[in-house]
């Protein structure tokens, strides 16, 4: 039963994430991303972390992707018309691949050959998770919050500036 659910949603996540990158219509891409994120939330439930699943759906699919859609509809972005070689895209692909390689070597160097036990349910349940975030790792947690605040402030300043020049 659990295996069947896993296989179904793993396949769904893979297929929908492929649609995200391959579809030419940005609206379809975002809708497929919704499916991907919901499938990943199901993975979290299967791993014994329902809190992460709920937050994943609430924050990513319920808020962030709606903003994606909002922007796409507001700017009326139609299908991607560029074909052929694009220096910008090629550069982005090279940088992304390099970054992925860096991450992989980091993880490999750190964890290869170590005896790893799977994540216990007691580590990702509600109370231990809260303790980890707001006690053990309080400083990194607050710094991430500050980073988001800085991004929001910067976005507001940029939006205000363009409004001032236009009027």
């Amino acid at each position, binding site marked *: 039963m659990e295996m069947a659910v896993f296989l179904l949603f793993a396949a769904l996540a893979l297929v929908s994430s492929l649609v995200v990158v391959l579809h030419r219509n940005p609206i379809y891409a975002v809708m497929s991303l919704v499916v991907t994120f919901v499938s990943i939330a199901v993975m979290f439930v299967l791993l014994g972390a*329902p*809190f992460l699943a*709920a*937050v994943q*759906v609430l924050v990513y699919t319920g808020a962030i992707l*709606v903003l994606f859609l*909002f922007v796409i509809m*507001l700017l009326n972005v139609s299908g991607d018309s560029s074909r052929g070689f694009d220096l910008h895209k090629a550069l982005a692909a090279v940088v992304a691949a390099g970054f992925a390689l860096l991450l992989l070597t980091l993880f490999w160097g750190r964890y290869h050959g170590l005896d790893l036990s799977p994540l216990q349910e007691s580590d990702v349940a*509600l109370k231990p998770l809260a303790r980890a975030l707001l006690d053990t790792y309080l400083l990194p947690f607050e710094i991430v919050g500050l980073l988001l605040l800085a991004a929001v402030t910067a976005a507001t300043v940029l939006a205000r500036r363009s409004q001032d020049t236009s009027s």
Partner: protein
Amino acid sequence: MSFELLATLAKTGLWMALLLQVTPIMVWVERRGSAMIQDRLGPNRVGPLGLFQALADAVKFMCKEDITPAEADKFLHRLAPLLALVPALTTFVVIPFGPDVTAFGRQVPLVVAGAETGVLLLLALASLGVYSLVMAGYSSNNKYSLLGAIRASAQMISYELALTLAVVAVLLPVGSFELSEVVRYQQGQFLGWIPKWNALPQFVGFLVFVVAAFAETNRLPFDLPEAESELVAGYHTEYSSMKFALFFMGEYMGMATLSCLAATLYLGGWHLPFLSYSGPWWWVAAQGMGVLVGKATLFLLFFVWVRWTFPRFRFDQLMRLGWKVLLPLAVLNLIAVAALTVGGVL
């Protein structure tokens, strides 16, 4: 089939049976209620007091021609009305309708899914509702529909924040996401006779929650995604027959589950003081469900009353209310409740 699975199926069946009745009954209440408020008669031809009007409407919806605009995105246009039912038919699973009972020698909690994440799961599922509106508006390929979709996405994001913060303030003194714990917390009385419901100590949060609930369900005075005086019918302009009916059902069932949530969070849920909740399990379940439905009905009637009493907001007024009034109020309420909880008052 295991006993747990059967029990879950039975509980789901009970909720479904009740929720599917909401739309026809509420349509009748809405039309007769609006007629009463506006000093008219309302539907009075089909059946006594026009009670069978909803049935006639249902037959009409099924017989009407289903039109898909030629330039529409066919796939999304068909998918959107189905998605409208997803939050309506899933969010009820975490709402408790009674205490744990013993049936056939087994302990059965009177909630479909007693998940640890409780109300968070409900909010997560409810937040998916906006996709149906956005999809419908976009796929119709019509400027009014698109404007309705854009408004819906902006409005729901804005009011979800205030709504969630109000809910968090309720959960703080309880110390759990589970709604059955929230109900247990509200049992007992102030001064021996006033029920210890959250609506009293947390009246600011209650106010924020109710106002945000109107925006989340796209009800007047916040029904800007379908404002008929400016957008024809907004996101569902290009929908007809049963597809249109599905949007209608989604709206009313969404209202019903949100009313149940409001009753659970602020009015003590299935619990009523001075009611003993003893006897056979089915009687306890019936009592709990009856009390919950009764309290939710109060909210539903309030929804109807407000709709026919207040004029529609302008979109900039709506945004200003959401971001500059409700959100700060919700944050202040959260800080006050947190301080009182730490101080041991709540």
